[in-house]
C-alpha cells in the first residue's frame, strides 16, 4: 500500500526581517517579507524522511490566499510530490477552529494516512491546529514528536515524543496527525532541478470551501475565539532584599502586600 502523507505548511512574516520602527518602537510586521513558518520545514523533513523508508506520496497543503503559493513551491522543491492550495474568500477571519476543520476535510479528501504539521506557527503560535485536525476527523494524534518510525506491515506509525521529564515511545494506528517538535528535523536542501521546476513550472492544485463541503462552517462568523479587549499592563515595581538565612526569609515575604 502506498501511504499518502499530507503536510500542513503556513506562510508567516519573516521573523528575521521584522524590524522595530525606530521612531515608534513598535514591531513593523507589514514590511516583513512572507516566508514559510520555520517549524513547518521540520514537518516537511519528517514527512520526507518517512517517504525515504516506505512507499509514500507526500503532498503539501496550505490554507491561505493565492499569495501563499510560494510556500507550496518550496515544499515541492524540497521533495513533495504535489501540493494543494486551499483558498476561498469564505475563509477570511477563520480562527483555529475553522482552520483545523478545513485542513481536516482537505486531509480526508486527499485520502491522507498521515498528516504532519509543525509544532506551532511563529505568528499566532497557538499549537491548536494539529490536534484540531485530529479531533475533527476522529484520528489519532502524536504531538511533540522527536523521532518517527513507520511500521507499514502493522499499518502504524511509531513516534518518540517529548513528555515532561523524559520521552515516550508510542504507536498510533493510521490515519494519524503528527505535530513534530521544532528543531528536531533538520530540513534537507532543495535539489537544483526540483527548485527550478517548483518555482517556474509547477502549479498547485486548488480546493475551495465549497468543494470541501464546509462553505457554511468557516469564516469569522463561526470562529469562537473572541478577544475581550486589550490592556497594556504597567510594570510592577519590584523590591529586592538579601536575607542572611532561610529563617529570615519568612518575615519579609509575609510583609509583602498583595
Amino acid at each position, binding site marked *: 500500500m*502506498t501511504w499518502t502523507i499530507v503536510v500542513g505548511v503556513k506562510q508567516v512574516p519573516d521573523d528575521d526581517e521584522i524590524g522595530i520602527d525606530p521612531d515608534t518602537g513598535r514591531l513593523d510586521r507589514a514590511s516583513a517579507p512572507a516566508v514559510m513558518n520555520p517549524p513547518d520545514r521540520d514537518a516537511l523533513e519528517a514527512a520526507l524522511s518517512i517517504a525515504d523508508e516506505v512507499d509514500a506520496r507526500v*503532498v503539501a497543503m496550505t490554507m491561505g490566499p493565492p499569495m501563499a503559493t510560494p510556500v507550496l513551491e518550496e515544499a515541492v522543491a524540497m521533495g513533495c510530490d504535489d501540493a494543494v492550495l486551499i483558498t476561498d474568500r469564505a475563509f477570511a477571519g477563520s480562527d483555529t477552529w475553522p482552520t483545523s476543520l478545513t485542513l481536516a476535510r482537505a486531509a480526508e479528501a486527499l485520502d491522507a494516512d498521515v498528516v504532519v504539521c509543525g509544532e506551532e506557527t511563529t505568528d499566532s503560535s497557538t499549537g491548536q491546529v494539529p490536534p484540531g485536525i485530529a479531533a475533527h476527523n476522529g484520528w489519532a494524534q502524536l504531538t511533540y514528536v522527536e523521532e518517527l518510525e513507520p511500521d507499514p506491515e502493522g499499518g502504524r506509525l511509531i513516534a518518540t515524543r517529548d513528555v515532561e521529564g523524559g520521552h515516550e515511545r508510542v504507536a498510533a494506528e493510521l490515519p494519524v496527525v503528527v505535530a513534530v517538535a521544532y528543531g528536531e528535523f533538520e530540513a*534537507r536542501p*532543495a535539489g*537544483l532541478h*526540483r527548485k*527550478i*521546476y517548483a518555482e517556474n513550472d509547477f502549479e*498547485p492544485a486548488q480546493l475551495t470551501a465549497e468543494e470541501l463541503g464546509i462553505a457554511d462552517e468557516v469564516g469569522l462568523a463561526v470562529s469562537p475565539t473572541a478577544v475581550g479587549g486589550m490592556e497594556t499592563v504597567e510594570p510592577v515595581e519590584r523590591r529586592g532584599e538579601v536575607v542572611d538565612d532561610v529563617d529570615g526569609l519568612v518575615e519579609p515575604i509575609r510583609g509583602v502586600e498583595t
Partner: protein
Amino acid sequence: MSAILDGRVGDAAIEEPNYDGEFDAVVVGAGLAGSAAALTMADRGLEVLLIERGSSPGAKNVFGGVLYTPTIRELVDLEDAPLERYVAEKRFSMLSHDDETALSISPGEWRREPHNDSYTVLRGEFDEWFAEQAVDAGATLVTETTVTGLLREGREVVGVETDRPDGGVEAPYVVLAEGANSLVGEGANLKATESRENVAVAAKEVLEFPNGENVIEDRFRLFGDAGVSYHYFGEGAVGEAFGGGFIYTNGDTVSVGVAYRLEDAAANDQSPEETLNLFKSHPRVAPLLRDARTVEYSAKTIPEGGAESVPDLAHDGAVIVGDAAGLVLNNGVHLEGTNMAVESGYHAGRVIADANARGRTDADALEAYGRALEESFVVKNLERYAWLQETVEEDRELLFETMPTAFADAGAEYFRMDREPKAEHASRAKRAVVDALGGWRGLAKLALRYRKVVT
C-alpha cells in the same frame, strides 16, 4: 490516492524534473554583468538560467556607489528603476591627518536629464530590479544557489555544478559573472588568481540620520533628487595605503567607505573596518556624518589590475564578464565598474546569441565578444590608465602623505592673516609646495608623469 490529484498536470511525482539541455545558457551571478547578459540573451529568444547565491540579486552586494547608466539605458527603461539621486556634484579632496584641500565640480548640465548618466543606487534594490527585467524578458532566476564548479567535456565547458543536491545542470553556454572574488573561473583555470598588488579591499557603511528632516539636503547643499559623490585621498583617508575614501548620498541615507590595496592592508596590520572608522572621524569628514546611525556594514574586494590583468575572455563554451574579468577602472579620479559590467554583459549576450544561431560554442566563435570589448570604451579606458598604477606606487609617499600636507600648508601660508605683506605669504606658499615636491624640476616631472590622468 484521492481523485483530486490523480494524473494532474504539473504533478512533480509524474516525472523527476530534469533541465539538462533545456537552457541555452547558464549565467553565474545576478549582478549587473550577469543580468545584462541574461537580459540580452533572453531578448534574443534564448532560454537562460540565471543563478545567484544570495537570497535575492544584490543582497550580498557591496558597492559605493554611483551607477553609470549609458549602456543600461539602452537595455531597459530606467523610468521605474530604483535610482536614489543623480550626481550633481563631484568633489575631490586631499586629506592629510588634519588638513583638507578640495576641488568641487558641479556643471549645470549634470542637473539636467540624463544627468550625465550618473546615479547613486542601493545595489540590494537595483540589482533585484534589474534581474527582474531579465526575468520579464524570459530568463529563469534561481537564488540561494552557489555555483561550485564547471562541468566539462574535454576542454569544452558544458554546464555548471552547484551546492544543491542533484546540482549539475548542462547548457551549451556558460557566462561567468561572479564578480571580483571569482572562485569558479579560477577553480576551472579560466583565469589566474589576481596577485595581491592588483586587489583592493573595500569597507562600506550605509548611514541614516534618525534626527531631523532634510539632513542630507542641508548638509550636502542639495535640492530635490540632486546628490553628491565625494572622493577623498591622502593620508587622512586611508592612512599610508594606496587608495581612497568616498561619501555618496542616497535618498535617505549616505554610503561611506574606503577602498585601498590589499597588500597595504595586510602590511599595515589594520582592518578595513578600523581604516573606515579613522576616515569617518577625520575632522573634515566627521561633521558631515554627525548623529548618523549605521544601518549596514560590508566589506569586499575590487580588482584593479587594469588592462594587463584582463584574462582570456572567451573559452570553449564559456565567457567571462564584469568584475570577474577584471573590468574595473580604479585610479583615484575614476572608480568605475558598473558601466563596464553592463557593457561586457551586453556584448557577451549578443555574441552568444549570434553563435547560437550558427550552432557554434567554440572559443573562436566567442572571440567576437573580446573584440567588441576592445573596440568599446571598456578596454580603451583600461589601457589608457594602465601606466597609472605603477607610477603611483613609485610615488606613493609623495602623493598620499607629502602632497596633502604641502598643499594645505601652502593654502595656510597664502591666506595667512598677520602683519606681513602678501608677497611674503605667496612666496612661502609656493616654497611649501615646490620644496615638498622636489623643487621645480621635481614638480615639472611630476606634472608630466600625471598629465594623462586628466588630459
